[in-house]
């Protein structure tokens, strides 16, 4: 299994979640983060003070998936988070040593997407 970490635009989050849901990728964690990926600086002015914002709000997704779901999940992220402008984000695929589902104590493939019939995922 793999841990897929994606950094995406906040305004793309709903589209990405919908696409993942339709592809039956279940179980993920979302956090708000800030980052910089070479996009153009955003200039703001408050009274006489002009500032360049080097850190942009982004959303970070962490998704644990079983091997057969890795390629599918990456493709979904690449398609649904895409705008074509600098700042669309990154997808990282990381190896995972062990995964446990806390509720049941299940480990590894049984603890990540896909949730097989009868098992039920923790997060919908």
């Amino acid at each position, binding site marked *: 299994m793999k841990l897929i970490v994606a950094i995406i635009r906040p305004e793309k989050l*709903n589209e990405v979640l919908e696409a993942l849901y339709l592809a039956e990728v279940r179980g993920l964690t979302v956090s708000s983060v800030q980052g910089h990926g070479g996009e153009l600086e955003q200039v703001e002015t408050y009274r006489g003070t002009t500032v360049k914002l*080097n850190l942009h709000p982004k959303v970070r997704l962490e998704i644990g998936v079983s091997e057969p779901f890795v390629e599918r999940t990456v493709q979904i992220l690449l398609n649904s988070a895409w705008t074509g402008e600098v700042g669309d984000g990154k997808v990282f695929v990381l190896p995972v040593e062990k995964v446990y589902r806390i509720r049941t104590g299940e480990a590894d493939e049984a603890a990540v997407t896909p949730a097989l019939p009868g098992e039920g995922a923790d997060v919908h």
Partner: protein
Amino acid sequence: MDQTLLLTLAQAGPPPGSKPIDGADTAWLLVATALVLLMTPALGFFYGGLVRSKNMLNTLMMSFASLGVVGVAWALIGFSVAFAPGWAGSGGLGYAGLRGVGLEGGAWGATPHLLYMAYQGSFAIIAAALISGAVVERMRFGPYLAFIAAWSVLVYAPVAHWVWGGGWLAELGALDFAGGAVVHVNAGVAAVVAAVTVGSRKDYGKQALLPHDVSYVLLGAGLLWFGWFGFNGGSALAANGVAALAFVNTLLAPAAALTAWMLLDMLRSRKATAVGAGTGVVVGLVAITPAAGFVGPLGAMAIGALAAGPSHALISWRSRTRLDDSLDVFAAHGTGGITGALLTGVFAQAAWGGTDGLLFGNPGLVLRQLAAIVAAGAYSGVATFAILRLIALVSPLRASARDEGVGLDVVEHGEEAYASGEGAVLVLPRRRAADAAGMDPDYRRPAVHPTRMEAP
């Protein structure tokens, strides 16, 4: 310069038909003007709390900007179109540029003409700002400014003339104490037309578009109520019993509407919502506006309670349709104004200063009220559409999908409502930046880079 103008400018002393100034009346109208002016920032917070945080400043600015551009347009020409001597459909240009608007009392009451101009101006300002609720989160700011300036002169001012400036609805005998048709039906219909002409938000109907801060909604509603005492109480244009009646009715009708709205909410979902409470207050205020000085206090409570029903039902229904009147301007102001204007025809009572209505043996008043609603609504709809289409010929009305995604605060104003300050680099002139970093200004290297993402 023609001779009439020279004569007007040279004219000394009070014009014919002027009245002496009454101190109490003037004091009350001064306060009432300031109260009504506060309603526009209050509306900004009411609307701002209902949008997503990335559009908070833009939504506030849509209201604040009206204080500027509509205020100027009103002084330069709007007041004249509404209140200068003219014909049944519109005032003339006699008061353009405030020519001949002095400090004497007159047909409007024993208060200075100039103060009356300012009081009416505060109505024009909020009427235009009301429309913004239908186009928030996607209309571009420049075209919006052009729209509200043009709308206040070409739509608001003529309709104000019909009812208050001696125009044809006044002749017909329709009752509109403080602007149920002039302000609320007018702005409510303009809002629907604007929502359709500008188009829906790109995510409307696909994603949940939730209020970002409901506490601002209640803050705005509370301040609107406070200001509305000037809106209705001041419309007596004197410090007298009618002002007191309108004032008390402005307390009781929203109280009844708020109570009814909470009950309707509880019937629907067992929970009285805070957004619903704020909306209920506004609907009650809108509904009592045309009736405030014509009905008794029990009639006012009946109007407030009865007005909650149609607006509550329309809000529930509208959000399931494709009409993105984003903040339900029509359900609150259009519907509240229509219900209030019709119920004015039912509950108005000669004993309280109105014309007797349906309950007191005069069903004809309801028909005259209906005529005022239809006329104001029809003219507003057609003229609003024409103004927006004309502006669209010069400049697109709505933001691009990308700008809408990023949010209009950054795109239109270059600011954020809730900036964290993290990752913000101060932009200094080149020499000062070099000094700050202790560097030779001619050495080409970026100055300070707090995120340290570039090599030192």
